[in-house]
């Protein structure tokens, strides 16, 4: 290795391109892994909601949330799912943030949450797919915890927003 380095130093013209190539080789795999590969995030294995086990204190059940929404101390509800599902049906008053598995979604969440008191009653939900596979809940939960929210709850949706909220007859709104 040292011999090669000395050889390159003697022939200065070769040193810069060789160092650049070596740097690229070292950095590229990390960058690809962080960006989710060339699918632009589609094939990335994200942190999943299953890291928050059902029954945990961080979670709120649909029936509990429906009751809270009728009380005087309503929570702020943020939707972290795909827009196509949100426009078809969402919890009344829920604000659309979008998928927080994507950096832009996480940025929107940060921006929205920045103006909320850290002790406010805040509920996040998705329901895009079965709980143990949801890629959006865990990054959002982690981010909001880091921001210092003390009354943060995650709506536990076992299968989907359709089967665990809409079909159960809980209040639903439609549109943007």
């Amino acid at each position: 290795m040292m011999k090669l380095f000395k050889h390159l130093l003697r022939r200065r013209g070769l040193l810069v391109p060789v160092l650049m190539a070596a740097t690229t080789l070292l950095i590229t795999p990390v960058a690809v892994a962080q960006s989710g590969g060339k699918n632009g995030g589609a094939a990335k294995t994200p942190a999943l909601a299953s890291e928050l086990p059902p029954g945990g204190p961080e979670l709120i059940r649909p029936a509990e949330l429906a009751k809270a929404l009728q009380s005087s101390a309503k929570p702020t509800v943020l939707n972290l799912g795909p827009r196509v599902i949100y426009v078809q049906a969402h919890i009344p008053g829920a604000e659309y943030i979008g998928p927080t598995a994507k950096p832009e979604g996480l940025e929107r969440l940060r921006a929205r949450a920045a103006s909320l008191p850290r002790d406010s009653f805040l509920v996040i939900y998705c329901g895009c797919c079965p709980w143990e596979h949801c890629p959006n809940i865990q990054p959002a939960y982690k981010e909001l915890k880091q921001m210092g929210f003390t009354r943060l709850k995650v709506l536990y949706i076992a299968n989907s927003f359709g089967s665990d909220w809409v079909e159960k007859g809980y209040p639903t709104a439609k549109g943007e």
Partner: protein
Amino acid sequence: MSSPKASGSTLPAPAITLTDLTGNTLNPSGYKGQVVLINFWAAWCTPCRAEIPQFMTLQDQYRSRGFQAVGISLDDPEGALRDFCRESKVNYPIVMGNQKIAEAFGGVLGLPTTFLIGRDGLIHAKYEGATDFPKLEQEITALLQSGH
């Protein structure tokens, strides 16, 4: 653990025109005479991605008997979707979905969601959540044999 759900219905398949990633147009109600599987999915949805090879196997296995699978992707960037389909060598048409298409099927409020349309153009089954493939295959073969 989530529990996948399959429910039967006999509503007609919606008469909407879809355009797949290669620019071909197709119509779920225009496949009369064939058994058609419509799978709403997304490349960002882990359980959806895991099902694609099994739909490809069904497509290979039953195509000659009059079976056609169609994938409708929700909320995927088109470039990422094309990359995924090319790399996975998906052997059936993939369509970029939207609210209108989802609502034409009575609403899709979770992924994956799969519909099975019979030769008669009616929706015979809807699977919500992870697909029960042994049950799905049974239904496909029954529909292929029955003429419905």
